[in-house]
């Protein structure tokens, strides 16, 4: 059923992504691909993977942006994946009933046995979170690793999305954004977590933490501003300095 859940889901599972600590290493991209091409329910296929122009479906992409200029500017690595929106337009446009948003935890999924591969949901998503699996003929998207987070065959500490598990900078956090006691909600409150394209009103579940303010007052570390002249006038070092300065 492609109508959205009548009530706001009591649990809203999602990611909090820290743009301050992301180092752009692409580990989350690769581990996402690795897990989702081998796991539920069918491969995440590539076209011509070993040819000159490979192309394929990936559920997580990391862009790198420059924001601002000069000393005030930043280079920001920016992971982009499904935000599991509350007003998920990709779900309501689906004509077949393949796309749905789960009432119990807010995760947006595609039933690949029903999808006819029309691509309309990818048009409806403002964030480019959905990519067509050309070989499979169905739409693919982030499942929030539903086959990991609820997987009782995995040790409890591994029940988190593949991208979160692999991040070496701990820039990705997984949790329930509807639970005021959860770590992710506290992180969002503490760091001013934000929505992407808030003006469009899709109400993403995932939040992004902005880069922290720069600490420019290096003087407070106690280090001298410059090294002192060891032998300004005379002595052996003074003679050496003058000799070498000629």
């Amino acid at each position, binding site marked *: 059923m492609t109508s959205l859940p009548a009530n706001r889901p009591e649990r809203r599972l999602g990611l909090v992504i820290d743009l301050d600590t992301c180092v752009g290493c692409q580990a989350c991209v690769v581990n996402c691909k690795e897990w989702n091409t081998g796991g539920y329910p069918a491969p995440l296929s590539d076209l011509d993977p070993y040819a000159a122009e490979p192309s*394929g479906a990936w559920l997580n992409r990391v862009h790198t942006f420059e924001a601002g200029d000069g000393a005030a500017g930043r280079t920001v690595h*920016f992971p982009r994946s499904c935000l599991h929106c509350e007003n998920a337009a990709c*779900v309501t446009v689906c004509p077949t009933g393949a796309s749905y948003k789960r009432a119990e935890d807010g995760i947006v999924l595609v039933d690949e046995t029903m999808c006819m591969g029309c691509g*309309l949901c990818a048009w409806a998503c403002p964030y*480019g979170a959905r990519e067509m699996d050309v070989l499979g003929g169905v739409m693919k998207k982030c499942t929030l690793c539903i086959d990991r987070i609820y997987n009782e065959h995995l040790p409890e500490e591994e029940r988190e999305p593949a991208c979160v598990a692999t991040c070496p900078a701990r820039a990705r956090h997984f949790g329930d954004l509807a639970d005021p006691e959860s770590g992710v909600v506290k992180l969002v409150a503490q760091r001013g977590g934000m929505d992407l394209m808030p003006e469009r009103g899709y109400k993403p579940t995932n939040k992004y933490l902005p880069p922290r303010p720069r600490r420019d007052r290096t003087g407070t570390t106690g280090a001298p501003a410059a090294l002192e002249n060891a032998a300004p006038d005379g002595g052996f070092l003074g003679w050496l300095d003058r000799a070498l300065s000629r």
Partner: protein
Amino acid sequence: MHPASSVILFTTSAGVGYGLLFLLGLAVPTGLIPAERWLGLAAMGLALGAISLGLLASTFHLGHPERAWRALSQWRSSWLSREGVVAVITYVPAGIFAIGWVVFETADDAWAVAGLLAALGALVTVVCTAMIYASLETIRQWHNRWVVPVYLAFALMTGALWLSAVLHLFGPGTLWSDLLASASVLLAWGLKLVYWRAVDGDTGISTPESATGLAAFGTVRLLDPPHTQENYLLREMGFRIARKHADKLRRIALAVGFAATLIFSALAVLTSGWPAASAAVLAALSGSLGTALERWLFFAEAKHSVMLYYGDRAA
């Protein structure tokens, strides 16, 4: 947006068919067009043939065409599903209306009701087709209040042009149908000009700064794209044509779809016999070609908000 030939053929051909069905469903029951067998066979054959060709073409680009029947299930939320449902339902009164006209040579009583219902179905189907595009807030050139009127006007125009041609070929041409064709050409392209003016003046509501949340640091520029080759997003939503080509293509569409069509259609009004018939057929052909060009531009000029992550400045 990528101008897929299957979708251009679908919207153009189905537009011809539904426009024609709409006019036939109104004009035959009211006696403006005689319920004669061979005229009915030609006119309804063309209308239902164009509709069926269009609907068939719409399944060409699917990853799983055998699952297309599932698209009839989600009419509560999806305009694509609504379109499918109304399109299928419309075949019922259209088929009954065609049987009455071609087999029994009548369009009275219950047959008339079928004709009027078919006209209504045609109208609603075109509205649903247009709403598939107009409901997508991610593409500002489509999420525009002129999209539905333009789709309706182009369906009316191509329907009226083919009606005029069919009446000239399979019966005596009628002045009202020739005049309607000319008037619909003016209406459709007039609305298209209004649409172009509206989208050219609209800069969108989102920027790379709002898309990344980095506005506090200043202007956001893409430094490193996330992949080295084209992906699905860039193929599907990164299609664009240069501004100068867009202007040129708009002029070509206007020359073919508007100017040539209007001249041929006016000649059909002013002449009679075979010159009028040839002019009406040429008007229908150039009007349809111009509509296909217009539809190509509708896709090629549209930009998706995801491109903000790939270097676009506004969406």
